[in-house]
């Protein structure tokens, strides 16, 4: 099993934290969209690992995870001090396909979904555009980092405290309607209802994109069938359950079976 010693673990804003593990082996193998499955060291009476998107990997072996403190697992993680060693499985999952040399990446993210696509900024030779939605201005993450990496950022907030008041999918509709000669490639990560809306918009416009699902997981390697999601399939029902840890977390939007 690989281990990751915590280099730093700090509050970045609101209830969002950023932890860096020293995990050079995972960093070398990680691609945008991969995740790590973390055994949180001080989490007693809880046995399951927690999956986190890999936000960034540095050449000196620092693996960055951005997380929101929402439950027992993330609360316990937020209290771990530098020097603590956690057991890590990874990199796991099916990563994003990097944009081709002539493609312009458009990222559609909700909340901390911005973390899952961040490594794509290193794969694009043409910059890119991130559409970021969040509840409020204080939930907008990594905006400066994306801009520093050469990406344009447009934001939407539910309460109107920053950018467009409304949903990130409104911004996506606008972008699709704009005339452009650029060759797009769409990527998305965020809460599941938002992702299903993104997939639906792309399907209706005969476009496709890569969607990273944030799903409850147990084993992380495809053994337990807990984290399944409906994908189109040649079955009497027209769908089958695919394991999001192994066949995903990144799926092509055309693969996803959307409930009517």
């Amino acid at each position, binding site marked *: 099993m690989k281990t990751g010693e915590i280099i730093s673990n700090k509050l970045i804003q609101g209830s969002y934290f950023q932890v860096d593990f020293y995990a050079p082996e995972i960093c070398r193998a990680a691609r945008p969209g991969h995740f790590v499955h973390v055994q949180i060291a001080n989490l007693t009476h809880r046995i399951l690992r927690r999956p986190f998107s890999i936000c960034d990997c540095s050449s000196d072996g620092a693996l960055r995870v951005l997380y929101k403190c929402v439950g027992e697992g993330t609360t316990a993680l937020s209290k771990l001090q530098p020097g603590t060693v956690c057991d890590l499985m990874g990199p796991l999952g099916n990563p994003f396909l990097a944009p081709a040399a002539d493609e312009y990446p458009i990222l559609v993210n909700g909340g901390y979904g911005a973390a899952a696509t961040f490594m794509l900024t290193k794969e694009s030779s043409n910059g890119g555009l991130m559409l970021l939605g969040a509840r409020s201005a204080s939930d907008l993450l990594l905006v400066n980092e994306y801009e520093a990496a050469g990406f344009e950022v447009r934001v939407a907030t539910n309460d109107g405290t920053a950018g467009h008041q409304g949903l990130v999918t409104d911004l996506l509709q606008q972008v699709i309607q704009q005339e452009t000669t650029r060759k797009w490639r769409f990527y998305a990560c965020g809460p599941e209802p938002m992702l299903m809306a993104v997939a639906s918009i792309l399907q209706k416009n005969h476009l496709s994109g890569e969607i990273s699902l944030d799903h409850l997981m147990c*084993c992380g390697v495809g053994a337990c069938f807990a984290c399944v999601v409906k994908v189109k399939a040649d079955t009497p029902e027209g769908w089958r359950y695919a394991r999001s840890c192994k066949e995903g977390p990144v799926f092509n939007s055309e693969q996803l079976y959307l409930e009517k």
Partner: protein
Amino acid sequence: MADLTTKLGPVTLKNPVMTASGTFGYGFEYKDYYDLRKLGAVVVKGIAPFPSHGNPTPRVAEVTSGMLNAIGLQGPGVDKFLTGDEYMPFLRASGADVIVNIWGKTIEDYCEVAARLDADCAGITALEINISCPNIKEGGVAFGTDLNLAAKVLSSVRKATSLPLITKLSPNVTNIADFARCAVDCGSDMISLINTITGMAIDIKTRRPKIANLTGGLSGPAIKPIAIRMVYQVAQAVKVPIIGMGGIMNADDAIEFMLAGASAVAVGTAIFADPYAPLKVIDGINDYLEQHNCKSVAEIIGALRLS
């Protein structure tokens, strides 16, 4: 090194530690972690004669010292299991000892899958009859909580195959020893227990059940004392070998099961926390045997002291 060889009726395993059905996929998922031949046996996820979607999501919920699951036996069906690259052909090539867990909605389903595996049995060490899944509407635990139905399905499967048979019992009964005796009377060579215990959890914010199936099977360390008690009761009731499971996280837990009467053990939910857990249990059993001057596993089976 103590002798870890474990005799289970007609079957001899290199060590007494298996993977519990449903927690290790089809072995393929863990092929990059270690050589599957190190395990006493790989017990695969339940196989039916037909492919099955399983239950709606969410399918799992974490609870104190355990988890609830209602996966609902999603699976490829026996045809794909016998021919697909990620299933039996892979396992055969791996050289692992393989136990195939089988289930169905009807008695005929159980017999059909048993007969199909019997006819293509290269690499299959035994079949484990699942009459204890609490999460499917038809079959499963319906057979495992009614002695008449259990007798019918078990004696029918016995006629459908000459492979060694393990009956996996449900803990969701009043007297588990009755079901163990029934299994032996119907020709089972071994008993495995326990499957998960039916449970439920509610999200107090949304007031909705935490799993879509409403109820699920509880596993993990929370259930171990119940499992130990049931293994002990079954060991008092029948003479066939017992495969004990239910919340084994480490070698100490496994040894407890063996002292209660289990000849072998299965590690399940612990694999989600640590894929290497079964191997650590094997090493830990060896260490215990050496420390206690035992030459073989057999010396601790049922070695509980009552006076």
